[in-house]
């Protein structure tokens, strides 16, 4: 062993000299001598190959030969590895190694809306011209940590902005003469949804804005490529050059991961997606899309439950994720989803290996782990001719371990990078974990060493543990202790020489009376066997809690299925000619209302006795902001390009709570920050499904507009953005619709026109292919928008909120606009001073299609009560009142062909109520969407019990883990920010 270490030292001298170098040598003379280095007797591990015992020859930083045996020539330096293990260096695809993150102080300050750069794209957060190599500076300490865990090559990037430019693939070796660390300057291009810290340009303020921006940038790059532009756009030019590079998208949550994949799909790009480590929550989509996941290993730590009141604050979701996270890689593997492994997100690199081994314990095969760290990332970066395995002509990037890497106690002894050797762990080359005993009748001493500790963990006297103090003296160690039953009073001192072999330790014992004895402690082979046996037991695959849909409280074990249901003897609120009719039956089949009638029967249908109960069609909320990760893109006064469909959050518990309130369909609207908002998502509340599966497929296109105090930024903003008055709002519309018409001309006459997704959307509005739902309060502006629409030849479909609608009900009727209003909200701002709860009644009586909406996650689950208020205030009949939350919103959304009433052939979106559905005493007992039972009061009871049981079990498990010494994290409760129209969330 000493020999090996000496060689390592000599080797350093030689490897600095390589042929064909053109770097001047300033601190001495250039050596002309190139050494061949032969690594002998190694177990060579390659991904997807069987390990074999062989030799490996390195010359000028490359592997020149690899074989079972290579004959030694006289110009070789040979190193006998004596059965040690060689692995190709691991490759990290998403690294920030050697890059200093930018700081806010470096940012250019603009007015918040315009771009601050010259000659670059119109948005500061698009920075494809950035190249990591310009910022790269080797960090020795950081490199050492990475080399220690097996990483020898990293793909590092400048972590700033949405399009972050190109990453550089670098070896973890310090530039020295001919050794240059950059393997490829532009190895991949990197994206994220996070804005640059170097600019205060607001747009995009939301994830959906970031997504729209990425789309438009790609379109602009395509256009720029094919057109002679009068000016140069350095950002687009850089982006065009990167088209064929591997594309890496960095995300930090599972929904963003799906969003990235979705954009990529639209533009024919298969992003390599850095995920959040909980990919098992979205397996079905990931399997379908087939993107490679760059998976982190930053498993959540167990929770610190220091206080009894704190335990219940940890959500089941968090507990489950903690419990399930180590199974992530196994589940990706089982579902044939390709993945690589990254250190990204690990705050302590030393936990990399233990977490990787944990993943293996949970069922990830070792060979898959190895490939996902070596050959696969190499292939993905198209650098597999250089890195990723140990073959001739590849870079000499490999590391040496004492025992196989995937053994718990293995150590990386040395790491060779481009032929240069980093000597990492010389002191630990001997792994002496085990028990050593002095077989002397006067001194029945034993020492026990743990797997990772250099010092003894236990000192035994006659097999009894005794206390000791430990001191490291260079490579030797001393222990000071007292022997309880000894005749000699005082301290014993024990000197342990640095171990030379595993079989025995040389020790010197100084007794209290000053005598010194040399003793030998011999390894107890039986002890090791006992331990090995324990390890065997450990190999049993650990259990983890089942993944539910969604993976949180009230998630389903399996998604509800389409079944045949026969609901008997209900009072039916048909919203059709039949009106409200007692003792009626409804047969649900294939997701549709199959049959309505008296005394229906059906073989093999599940019978639901609804005697004394009421059955209605599902409630439709025309104005909702639940199930969304964002509400407002507030960066521009028109954001017609953003889509609420991009930011669906199917894990929002309010979906389940809305189902429990009888809601089955919602319009997920953009907020009211801008005169022209974003595109709506019309959703069915299919709890447990993937985001895109919630979309109401047959629904037409909608967009949010807004008027009044919010769009003119009455209580916020710096006053720069137009408009700041209602007068300006009108001009915004006229200007944008004119732009849309001009765009149409261009589109029709110029085959190489620049596609603009914002203007495309606006054109759809002008051409009546997309409907408007307009946030509105006072009569003047309501009237204005109708006049603007008439000027451009289209109709405003819906005014939402519309609290002064009653003042212009006649005009609305004439124009053909519908109304979707609150039942009784007012007094929250100046423009609702004249809002009255009789609004819906007047509008309804004037023949305007009128709906009652929520704009609120709490109210939405009681919309039946809100509908009933139209009886109190507006004097509506019960039947008409009920339609304000069912058929009327269906009409406003143009989906009344499918939902909104109980009619044969319509979707079986139905609610069974315990009582008169407009009464305060009514509870939704069963809620069907597409004939599937998504909410059931009985099932809810069961789910509550299951949640409690699982939660208690997991809290116990987290307690056990923290008591067994695992590092823990504090309990942090997430308080949801409930979103309304005017929720402004800034993506940081």
């Amino acid at each position, binding site marked *: 062993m000493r020999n090996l270490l000496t060689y390592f030292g000599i080797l350093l001298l030689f490897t600095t000299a390589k042929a064909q170098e053109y770097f001047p040598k300033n601190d001495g003379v250039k050596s002309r001598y190139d050494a061949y280095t032969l690594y002998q007797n190694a177990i060579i591990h390659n991904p997807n190959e069987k390990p074999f015992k062989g030799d490996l020859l390195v010359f000028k930083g490359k592997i020149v030969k690899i074989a079972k045996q290579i004959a030694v020539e006289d110009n070789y330096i040979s190193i006998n590895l004596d059965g040690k293990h060689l692995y190709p260096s691991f490759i990290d695809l998403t690294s920030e190694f050697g890059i200093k993150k930018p700081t806010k102080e470096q940012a250019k300050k603009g007015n918040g809306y315009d771009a601050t750069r010259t000659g670059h794209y119109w948005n500061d957060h698009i920075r494809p011209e950035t190249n990591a190599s310009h910022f790269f500076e080797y960090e020795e300490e950081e490199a050492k940590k990475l080399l220690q865990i097996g990483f020898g090559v990293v793909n590092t990037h400048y972590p700033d902005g949405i399009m972050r430019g190109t990453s550089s693939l670098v070896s973890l070796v310090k530039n020295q003469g001919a050794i240059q660390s950059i393997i490829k300057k532009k190895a991949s291009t990197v994206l994220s949804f996070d804005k640059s810290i170097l600019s205060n340009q607001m747009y995009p303020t939301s994830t959906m804005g970031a997504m729209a921006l990425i789309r438009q940038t790609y379109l602009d790059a395509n256009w720029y490529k094919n057109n002679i532009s009068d000016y140069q756009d350095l950002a687009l030019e850089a982006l065009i050059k990167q088209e064929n590079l591997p594309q890496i998208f960095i995300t930090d949550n599972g929904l963003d991961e799906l969003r990235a994949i979705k954009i990529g799909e639209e533009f024919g790009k298969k992003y390599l997606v850095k995920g959040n480590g909980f990919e098992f929550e979205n397996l079905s989509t990931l399997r379908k899309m087939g993107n490679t996941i760059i998976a982190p290993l930053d498993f959540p730590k167990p929770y610190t439950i220091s206080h009894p009141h704190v335990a219940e604050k940890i959500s089941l979701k968090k507990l489950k994720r903690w419990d399930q996270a180590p199974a992530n890689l196994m589940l990706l593997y089982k579902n044939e989803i390709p993945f690589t492994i990254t250190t990204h997100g690990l705050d302590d690199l030393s936990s990399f290996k233990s977490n990787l081994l944990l993943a293996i314990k949970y069922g990830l095969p070792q060979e898959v782990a190895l490939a996902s760290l070596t050959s696969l990332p190499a292939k993905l970066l198209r650098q597999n001719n250089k890195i990723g395995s140990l073959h001739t002509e590849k870079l000499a990037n490999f590391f040496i371990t004492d025992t196989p890497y995937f053994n718990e106690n293995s150590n990386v002894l040395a790491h060779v990078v481009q032929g240069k050797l980093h000597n990492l762990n010389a002191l630990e080359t001997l792994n002496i974990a085990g028990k050593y005993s002095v077989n002397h009748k006067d001194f029945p001493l034993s020492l026990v060493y743990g797997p990772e500790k250099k010092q003894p963990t236990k000192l035994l006297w006659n097999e009894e543990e005794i206390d000791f103090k430990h001191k490291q003296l260079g490579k030797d160690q001393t222990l000071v202790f007292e022997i309880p039953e000894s005749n000699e009073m005082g301290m014993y001192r024990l000197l342990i020489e640095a171990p030379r072999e595993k079989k025995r330790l040389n020790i010197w014992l100084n007794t209290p009376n000053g005598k010194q004895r040399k003793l030998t402690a011999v390894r107890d082979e039986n002890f090791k066997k006992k331990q090995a046996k324990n390890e065997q037991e450990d190999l049993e695959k650990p259990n983890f809690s089942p993944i539910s849909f969604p993976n949180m409280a009230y998630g389903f074990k399996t998604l509800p299925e389409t079944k045949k249901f026969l609901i008997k003897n209900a009072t039916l609120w048909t919203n059709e000619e039949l009106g409200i009719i007692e003792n009626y039956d409804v047969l649900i089949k294939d997701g549709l209302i199959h049959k309505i009638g008296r005394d229906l029967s059906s073989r093999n249908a599940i019978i639901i006795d609804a005697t004394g109960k009421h059955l209605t069609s599902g409630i439709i909320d025309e104005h909702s902001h639940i199930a969304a990760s964002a509400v407002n893109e507030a960066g521009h006064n028109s954001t017609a390009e953003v889509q609420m469909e991009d930011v669906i959050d199917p894990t929002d518990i309010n979906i389940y709570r809305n189902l429990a309130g009888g809601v089955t369909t919602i319009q997920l609207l953009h907020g009211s920050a801008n005169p022209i908002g974003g595109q709506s998502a019309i959703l069915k509340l299919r709890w447990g499904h993937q985001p895109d599966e919630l979309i109401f497929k047959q629904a037409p296109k909608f967009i949010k507009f807004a008027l009044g105090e919010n769009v003119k930024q009455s209580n916020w903003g710096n006053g720069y953005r137009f408009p700041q008055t209602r007068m300006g709002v009108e001009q915004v519309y006229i200007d944008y619709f004119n732009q849309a018409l001009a765009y149409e001309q261009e589109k029709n006459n110029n085959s190489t026109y620049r596609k603009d997704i914002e203007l495309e959307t606006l054109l759809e509005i002008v051409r009546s292919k997309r409907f408007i739902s307009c946030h509105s309060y006072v009569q003047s502006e309501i009237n204005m928008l109708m006049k603007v629409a008439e000027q451009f030849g289209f109709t405003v479909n819906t005014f939402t909120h519309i609290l002064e609608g009653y003042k212009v*009900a006649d005009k609305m009727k004439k124009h053909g606009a519908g109304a979707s209003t609150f039942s009784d909200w007012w007094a*929250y*701002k100046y423009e609702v001073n004249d809002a009255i709860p009789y609004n819906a009644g007047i509008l309804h009586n004037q023949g305007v299609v009128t709906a009652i909406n929520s704009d609120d996650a709490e109210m939405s689950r009681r919309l039946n009560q809100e509908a009933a208020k139209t009886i109190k205030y507006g004097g509506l009949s019960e039947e008409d009142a009920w339609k304000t939350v069912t058929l009327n919103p269906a009409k406003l959304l143009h989906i009344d062909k499918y939902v909104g009433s109980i009619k044969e052939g319509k979707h079986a979106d139905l609610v069974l109520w315990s009582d008169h559905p407009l009464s*305060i005493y009514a509870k939704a007992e069963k809620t069907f969407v597409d004939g599937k039972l998504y909410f059931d009061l009985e099932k809810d009871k069961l789910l509550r019990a299951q949640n409690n049981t699982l939660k208690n079990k997991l809290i116990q498990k987290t307690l056990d883990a923290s008591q067994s010494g695992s590092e823990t994290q504090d309990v942090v*409760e997430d*308080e949801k*920010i409930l979103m309304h129209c005017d929720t402004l969330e800034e993506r940081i």
Partner: protein
Amino acid sequence: MKSFHSTSLLIILLLFTISVKAQQTPGAIQKNAISIQGATLHNGKGGVIKNSRIDFNNGKITYIGQNNEKHPLATDTKIIKANNQHIYPGFVVPNSTLGLVEIDAVKASKDENETGSFLPHIRSLIAYNTESKVVESMRPNGVLIAEITPRGGRISGTSSVVQLDAWNWEDAYINKDHGIHLNWPSVYKRISHLDKKKKITQDLENYTKEVNKLTFYFEQAKSYRSKEIGTKSIAFEAVKPVFSGNKTLYIHANTKQQIADILLFKEELQIPKIVVVGGYEALSFASELKKAQIPVLVNRPHSLPRQDDEDYDAPFKLATQLTQAGLLVGLEPSGDMERMNARNLPFYAGTCAAYGLSKEEALQLITYNNAQILGINSNYGSLEVGKSATLFISEGDALDMRGNKLTHAFIDGRAVSLKTHQTKLYDRYKNKYKK
């Protein structure tokens, strides 16, 4: 000429009253006895009389019984036939900020939150705007009495109870400066605001510090003797009556830790009257609260559960659970848009009936129980002979949106207008389209 002059003046005066003063004129003092006959009477303490008769004179209830019973009518009694209708005591809304803010988004109209931390001397009553458009909108829903409560700080200030049909605050109050509102320190602190979520974590160190500070403040107040000091402490003067039971201490608190510490605080400082406002996690301490005779004002049931894992109906059933555990429970409306939503108080109670209470028990939450908690139950909150004739007639079940349609309302026997800024706009535009 003269007569023309006076007539035109009258017309001008009349126009002036209509166009400038949109608010309703308070009802005149009761002159004639009134007898309401044939309605279903809900007395607010659990009792129901079908086909009832209730008489009141000089603002006081003089008779309650069956309609067919022979009981003499006072002379000049005005009889109101109310067959198939319902009579209720006026609803009482505690912990409200009615009349302190007119429009949430207009800063100039906000008077609910004074700057500073320990402000027991701040009095809500003098800022209470009797002519608020929001206040008048309470009456058509049966909400006739309110506690006007300041917000913010550790001790927000002193509240008063008012009736909602008055010329000014001096006419309005029925329990003046009756309580002090204290926001108990929070066990949890916000640590960040990322990802659309507020991150909250336990911070016992700071919590203990704040509780100690608070306890010390009350110890000082308790030992305060005005005569021994040169300058009066207006703050301690305001706190002092809390120790004699002349003022109620309303402590806003929700979590277990807070409630456990409030129990200790009551015992240590020997404060006779404490009410917990909020009490989201009070169920865990129900028996202790009962023993300490601490009532709970449960936050409006029309709220969302605080955590994903909770039962979807947790806020719907909390008042029921606490009632069934033997506590004195009321309902309070604080939260987003609390002022304009205070008129939904009956529907908050109705929701409690949907989730476990009987309808009369649910009614009691917002009548007799709230009145007890505000210390006005000797005269308000229930229909009993000798008590104030503060009541209303509704066409149907007043806890249900469909039935809550008031035909008459009386405060201290005065017939109260059920017109509001909103009903006037309704009438105006209804007529516009008729033409």
